[in-house]
């Protein structure tokens, strides 16, 4: 590979960068991490570009690389507890509930976005990535399994756990007496 290949590669991926950046934002939850993940993904893609020979759609190929980079990034953050200091979920929920006692207004508020963000921070890397791909990206279980490289059942279990964690946090904030022990109303 030479500098000419670098220019060809940059030209090819240019029109996918907006998509990649926003996908990374959904998977990581903040702009700095999204930027790092996109950069790492493009470096990885360039390193292995000789393997891509148009067999698959370029966006699909980049998507898969980015998902795995995002997973690795989340895992590395987890291994470095000093890297993130998210506000405890309970504090965020209590603040959100006290600022906006009306559930309708709460959902439309910035507090709600912070609450969702905090709830997603509490997810494991696989829970977060599989949930984001299913919920935000609308990818099917089969597509997620292929992108992440785990089985269909494993994807389902991660999504179930992610939804449980979300509901535990969000349902608690929506009620005046927060529930902390379970999310099912039945």
């Amino acid at each position, binding site marked *: 590979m030479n500098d000419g290949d670098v220019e060809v590669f940059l030209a090819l991926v240019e029109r996918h960068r907006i998509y990649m*950046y926003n996908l990374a*934002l959904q998977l990581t*939850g903040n*702009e700095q991490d999204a930027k790092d993940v996109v950069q790492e993904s493009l470096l990885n893609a360039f390193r292995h570009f000789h393997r891509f020979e148009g067999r698959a759609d370029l966006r699909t190929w980049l998507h898969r690389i980015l998902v795995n980079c995002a997973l690795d990034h989340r895992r590395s953050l987890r291994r470095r507890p000093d890297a993130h200091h998210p506000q405890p979920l309970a504090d965020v929920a209590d603040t959100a509930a006290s600022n906006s006692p009306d559930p309708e207004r709460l959902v439309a508020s910035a507090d709600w976005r912070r609450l969702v963000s905090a709830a997603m921070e509490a997810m494991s890397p696989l829970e977060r990535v599989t949930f984001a791909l299913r919920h935000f990206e609308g990818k099917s279980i089969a597509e997620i399994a292929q992108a992440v490289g785990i089985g269909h059942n494993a994807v389902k279990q991660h999504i179930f756990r992610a*939804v449980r964690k979300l509901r535990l946090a969000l349902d608690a904030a929506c009620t005046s007496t927060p529930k902390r022990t379970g999310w099912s109303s039945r």
Partner: protein
Amino acid sequence: MSHLKDDDLVLQYYGEGGPEMLTAARHLEACTDCARAYEALARTLGAVKPPEFVEVPDDTQALRQLLREQVRAQTWLTEPRAIALAWLVPLLYPWALPAFFASAQLAGEQVPAVALSVLALLWACAGPVVALAVLHGTVDRFDRVLTRLRVLGALMATVSPPLFILIARGGERLPTWYGAIAVTAVLALVPWPNVSGPTRRLQFVHRVSAAVLGVFILGHIVNQSLAFVSVPSYAEMRSVMRLATQQSISYVVILTAVAIQIVTGATMVLKNVGAGAFARNLQAVSGWYLAVFLFSHVFAAFFLPRPAGVPPVAASLVPPYLLTSARATAQLPYYLLGVAAFLVHVGVYARLAAPAYLAESSVRRLSYAATFVGAMVVATVGLSLCGIHIYG
């Protein structure tokens, strides 16, 4: 129909309920409890919106710089080097064994030579590690001769110890060995079949036969580890195992399971090799080793005589001491890698399947613990095969 579970509601919400979706939808119309629970779920999930769309920061220049640096620091393991490295392992393998034997003899007299014998043993056992490094940069299509040469080199590097034992049993050593290497290299010139078909049924058969065989192999590994602690206990357990495995039914079951493992594994093998997919490559490499190991261990006795001077390990009630002769020494990397390949093959499968049942952090902790225990088992078996026992 009973009430829908919480997880069923999630699948229903995302339209992933499969054929059961229609039944679940009818139930939701009829059951107010479930309908209320579904509404609560839909309300919460519906309020979870993606992060707002943002402008992409323009870091093209920084990226260009990083890519150019990457070009300059290109990987050391280029394709020609990877192919050369892979084929060097089988070419040099016959010389690793006398080196190990000589250094082990020297270590018996001069303690500092222990390091030398450990290095020689690592050299003899290096094949699978080299294969993993070589496969890491390979493509998952085999339409190029160089790619096929690379994969076959990795295969030969991996299976060198059991293949060498197999060829040694036939009497001839070096000419046959290098002939086998040449024939394998020629296979790179032949186009390989497409392996894109589904393997779900094969995987099922492979797992069932693996479960049967796993019990047998695990028993042997536990017993061999036991030999490190106490030789009398090893002998007692060995006699019980011999009694069990020499029953004609259990013998036929073991032979059938090994045959199924080899055939189904060989059919799936190329599907499991892929660029950068470390776990899949680890699974493939350990599978290659196990296939040749089990073949040489179980079937070779039917058509190849055992050379004189090599102790019949499987029939012995005394733990084998493999440093007694140069020929017996060849069995040390063979058995050590056999034990390691079995533990890795099962371990990687369990690691990939576990996230469906356990939280990721638990899976990671368990896999660290399993890696430690596995390494200890391999070391213990190695020590006992070298004739080192706590209670003789």
